[in-house]
């Protein structure tokens, strides 16, 4: 048996995951168009000197970028893990459910017709869009006999996404000047965000993450079957609604900050469950760390592939995620 399935080793595993995350974070601070040595990076953090160019690079652009990647990675991975538990569907994830596309359409719509341009408003609009998309896909996917079968959910998600994407495209074609900037954001990016933009979203995301961690054992009961859960006195409906709200906050918030970054929410929970087993008290914190590390690594790689330009990080995660998606689809069906 996998040693990580035992409790004692799970703590050690969690600490190692945290170290990996720290390593990814450091890489993200020091690598890029100007590579900065690790000691210099540490210097910049602990003995900041604004006359040194490298220090400024680390503390201004790269630190924000790493923090944004961490937040988005955590949120998406946790959102994916929660969705997979809620729908008992291995292919559930924010992007598959059309949540990203929904949030993006609503933001582009608001920006085009109501000249909304503050991030606080973007955030609320993203939450609404994410919620509408998630609910429609959930309802459509669970109609009829057989409940939320993977194929139904994936198709419903593909349809809802296609709908939102083509409407977004229609709006963007009308508004040619902004295509380039919006496209980069649409494709998913963690660059060029400053912390002021992230701050309004942060409370919601943090609340979502903390709440998710607290729900670990309830989710375990839910996963053992709804009848069992009811028998144990769980309020299933309340739990499901809470999970839904957390998912909308985490996924919608991520889109508001970083645009469409796919596949993180799909693959990370699978990796984690394969590694440590299905106990959600552990799956959630591991997912958070793995998600953050994955996005940090992907972001670092995105800086090097077509230097001096950058690959949008959403493109990177799609390339990493597609083989994995296909692997799961092949194995489960």
């Amino acid at each position: 048996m996998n040693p990580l399935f035992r409790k004692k080793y799970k703590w050690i595993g969690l600490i190692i995951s945290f170290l990996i995350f720290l390593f990814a974070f450091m890489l993200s601070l020091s690598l890029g168009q100007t590579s900065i040595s690790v000691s210099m990076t540490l210097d910049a953090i602990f003995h900041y000197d604004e006359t040194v160019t490298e220090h400024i690079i680390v503390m201004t652009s790269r630190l924000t970028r790493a923090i944004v990647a961490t937040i988005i990675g955590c949120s998406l991975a946790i959102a994916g893990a929660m969705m997979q538990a809620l729908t008992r569907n291995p292919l559930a994830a924010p992007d598959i459910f059309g949540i990203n596309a929904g949030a993006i359409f609503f933001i582009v719509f608001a920006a085009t017709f109501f000249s909304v341009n503050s991030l606080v408003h973007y955030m609320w609009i993203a939450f609404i869009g994410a919620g509408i998309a998630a609910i429609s896909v959930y309802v459509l996917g669970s109609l009829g006999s057989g409940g939320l079968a993977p194929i139904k959910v994936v198709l419903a998600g593909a349809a809802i996404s296609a709908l939102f994407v083509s409407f977004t495209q229609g709006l963007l074609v009308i508004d040619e000047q902004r295509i380039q900037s919006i496209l980069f954001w649409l494709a998913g990016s963690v660059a060029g965000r400053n912390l002021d933009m992230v701050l309004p979203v942060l409370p919601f995301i943090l609340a979502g993450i903390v709440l998710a961690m607290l729900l670990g054992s309830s989710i375990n009961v839910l996963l053992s079957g709804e009848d069992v859960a009811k028998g144990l006195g769980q309020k299933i409906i309340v739990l499901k609604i809470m999970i839904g709200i957390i998912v909308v906050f985490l996924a919608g918030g991520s889109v508001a900050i970083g645009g469409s970054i796919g596949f993180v929410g799909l693959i990370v929970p699978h990796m984690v469950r394969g590694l440590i087993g299905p106990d959600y008290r552990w799956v959630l914190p591991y997912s958070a760390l793995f998600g953050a590390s994955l996005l940090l690594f992907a972001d670092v790689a995105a800086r090097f592939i077509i230097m001096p330009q950058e690959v949008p990080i959403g493109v990177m995660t799609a390339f990493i995620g597609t083989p994995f998606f296909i692997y799961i689809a092949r194995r489960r069906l």
Partner: protein
Amino acid sequence: MKKEQSQPLFHLFKNRITWIILSLLACLFMVTIVSLSVGSTYISPIEIWGHFLGQGGGEYDFTINMLRLPRLILAFLVGAALSVSGLILQSIIRNPLASPDIIGITAGASVGAITFIVFFAGTISISWLPLVSMSGALVVAVLVYLLAWKQGVTPIRLVLVGIGIAAAMKAFVMMMIVVSETAVTTKSYLWLTGSLYGATMKDVIGILPWVVVFIPLAFLLARTIRVLELGDELATSLGVNVQVIRFSLLFVSVVLAGSAVAFAGGIGFVGLIAPHIAKKLAPNVFHLLVPIAGLIGGLMVMVSDLIARTAFLPLDIPAGVFTAGIGAPFFIYLLYRNRHM
């Protein structure tokens, strides 16, 4: 003997199928007239009639011959190709929700076309574009097929793998657009959404051979589709080589979708809806579904393009936005209808 032969023929003319085809042709005629007459300059139907009879001083030569007619014909051909492609796909996948855009074939064609536009548009003649985009579609279709292969291909795996590959292809297209220059960006984005803007007779001649060869081919293959729809075991026991037939049908479907994308970009949802309308209108007559679906698909794109170019004058909105606007709600309705699948 003679009576037995004439019976089906007699039946055909009494049949509502005949009436359906006739009324579709009537619609086609009407939409053609309307499309030719409306736009930034209005030309009355009588003047159009005169124009085609060679009367009038040729004052509409440019508007009709160069702008509206090619665009109209291209719209029809693209729509017909997409619709028949979708019809075949839905039959081989045995899933009413499949269409070339959902399982990644359109996205594959887009990757081919975008790569061409971004890297080679200045250096190599644009007439290679369709071939490149078709190869993109074909490569993706083969890839999806191979990846879905596990002792044969099941419809569900094909759809899921297709959706996965579609995501990767869209990511690739996105990357190409983001890294390219602004002028190219706008151009490729417009193209991606599916637009018939600036269609010329050269485009019409470019797509024509593909449609003219492969839609009749689909018509001929339609009988085997019927057998495939019975299910793999039953079809095999009837002596049909399921995998070979399925692959050749897939090939026809890919070529049709690829050629449509090459000339008009990603006009979505036509391949999904048009076959359904055809099946609804003419149930249980599979061999005639191909022409009916083709007509409906052609009409859909013609009408969408008509609305797209006239509703917001002087703006010329991509027709793809309208097909998606009709198509996506319809898809949701289909999901609801097929909730017990």
